[in-house]
């Protein structure tokens, strides 16, 4: 087992910068999720750790060893591919033992290790089948077994659940977490699914346009997003973001004006000289009341346990309100007023998108 350290790692494909000066340390035994929209550079970062892409600039280390110029096979990492990448002409047994054969592991030990990995993943009945005779979920588990049988220093997982149906995805997600926690193998897990990221990672590194936006624990990321992008990307639905302006009232108390309504300046955020800020609040921090932002409901999504009201403000901006009340009687086109819980407000710089500093 080992840590993985990116120090100013950059990857360029001709003129395109896929990963830009990435600084990130994955601790020994940690499950770190690389999260971001497609094209953000997360898979490229993972492939650089595997050695499948060359590092253009910077240093990449596994443990204390700089691996920039090390061949994939010498890095002692195992990867689970989105497509599973099973060898179609080999049985499950042979697929799992394929890496061990190369390592020169003796036949007896090989079969006991294969059996152990297969049993862990509930594949012991399927050892003689070929990948073509397996379901998607079973194939995925064979791919996992092939990775764990080697006992590598690092697991790399590239969106391993994206080809599974929703139910199976939830099941396999918890299986992967359980195995990772038990083995304690350092794992880098790439996904664009923020629910996967929130439920699986010790920490999440959010990437955008090849750069790291924020790395933190799932709750920190949710409660204290460092940028407006992280705020909107995490959560389902994401954080509501509105353009707002700071002002000073007649009595000298600071306030915030957004979508025609006035709010007191929230505690814990420094004032902005320019005045323009981005106001953020989660759907659960909003409720319908007798005062607040003027809005019209344009869509009602009833999810069973909760209801999402998608509302349009006077200036056309959209705001989502989450209601725990499953009997919500609101209908499309209803005029409502949205009250924001001022304790749960986030403020970001309107230009840079960075969270405003703490303090007064």
């Amino acid at each position: 087992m080992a840590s993985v350290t990116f120090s100013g790692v950059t990857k360029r494909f001709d003129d395109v910068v896929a990963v830009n000066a990435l600084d990130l340390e994955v601790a020994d035994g940690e499950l770190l999720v690389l999260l971001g929209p497609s094209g953000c550079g997360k898979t490229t970062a993972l492939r650089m750790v595997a050695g499948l892409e060359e590092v253009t600039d910077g240093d990449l280390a596994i443990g204390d060893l700089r691996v920039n110029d090390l061949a994939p096979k010498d890095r002692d990492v195992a990867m689970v591919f989105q497509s599973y990448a099973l060898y179609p002409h080999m049985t499950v047994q042979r697929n799992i033992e394929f890496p061990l054969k190369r390592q020169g592991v003796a036949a007896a030990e090989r079969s006991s290790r294969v059996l152990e990995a297969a049993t862990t993943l509930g594949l012991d009945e399927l050892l003689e089948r070929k990948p073509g005779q397996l379901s998607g979920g079973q194939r995925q588990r064979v791919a996992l077994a092939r990775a764990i049988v080697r006992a590598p220093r690092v697991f790399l997982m590239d969106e391993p659940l994206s080809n599974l149906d929703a139910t199976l995805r939830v099941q396999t997600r918890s299986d992967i977490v359980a195995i990772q926690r038990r083995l304690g193998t350092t794992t880098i897990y790439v996904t664009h699914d923020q629910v996967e990221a929130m439920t699986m990672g010790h920490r999440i590194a959010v990437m955008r346009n090849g750069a790291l936006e924020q790395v933190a624990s799932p709750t920190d990321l949710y409660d204290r997003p460092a940028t407006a992008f992280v705020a909107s990307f995490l959560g389902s639905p994401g954080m509501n973001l509105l353009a707002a302006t700071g002002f000073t009232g007649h009595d000298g108390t600071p306030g915030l004006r957004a979508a025609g309504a006035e709010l007191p300046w929230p505690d814990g955020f420094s004032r902005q000289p320019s005045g323009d800020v981005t106001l953020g609040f989660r759907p659960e921090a909003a409720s319908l009341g007798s005062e607040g932002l003027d809005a019209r409901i344009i869509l009602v999504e009833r999810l069973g346990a909760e209801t999402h009201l998608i509302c349009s403000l006077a200036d056309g901006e959209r705001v989502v309100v989450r209601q725990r009340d499953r009997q919500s009687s609101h209908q499309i086109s209803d005029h409502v007023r949205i009250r924001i819980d001022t304790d749960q407000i986030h403020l970001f710089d309107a230009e840079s998108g960075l969270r405003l500093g703490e303090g007064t």
Partner: protein
Amino acid sequence: MPPTDLKTPATTRKSHRRSRLILRYVLLTLGAVIVLFPVYVAIVNSLLEPSQIAHQPPPLFPLHPQWNSYSRAWSQGSLGIYLRNSAIQTALIVTGQVATSVLAGFAFAFLAFPFKRTLFITFLATLMIPFEVTVTTNLSTITSLGWFNSYAGLAVPFLATGFGTFLMRQAFLQIPRDLREAAELDGYGRLAFLWRVAIPLARPAIAALAVFSFLSSWNQYLWPLLATGNDNSVRTVQIGLKQLLNTQLDQINVSLAGTVIAVVPLIVLLVIFQKQLVRGLTAGAVK
């Protein structure tokens, strides 16, 4: 009310499908008869007396088959030696073509190297050059190498083919990149990947290539005629047949018996590899 006799749409569809199927079989049978008739006539004629063959119309069934035409063809035409020579030449060519095509196809499919595209187009361009254009150059080359009238002279000019390289490249391109990368992470280098993953997965294409290569080298006539001397130490069966025809002008049944003997290895091969051959031809047509 009396039961109506109207056909439901389902039964109409079924009968349509049935008549289409019948039509298809009729056409296929017709095609098979047209293709096989000359072969049948050759076999029948090889079993007739020469005088019967000249008879108009010639009989379509040998009432008194003359089996001795086969033993005469074998002994008088030295078919045993010619068949052996053909077998050696064909084995050399098939082995060589499969080996070079697999390696070159793998390089074009999986490796990155300078001028890859240009080189590949050059390979393809060789498909447009008829063999006859290069025959003189090839002949003078093998002669100056001292390979005239030798197996090397018969086989070496055919050891690499643009067609085989193209076929193998296409087959290897069907293998997902992820498999190559997974093997790389599992510790397998290029050749190990080729041997353990790529070749097993490309087996239908390799079998098809082997069969095509077998057919074309077994049926060669011009090159073995030019590249071998008058002794029959390395001459191949097609030339042997021609000589048989020349020496047995009045015994056409013996020549035909020789032809039938020369075709037997091909038939056996086709029966064995039929499935692979069809799969290889259509491989990659539909993804």
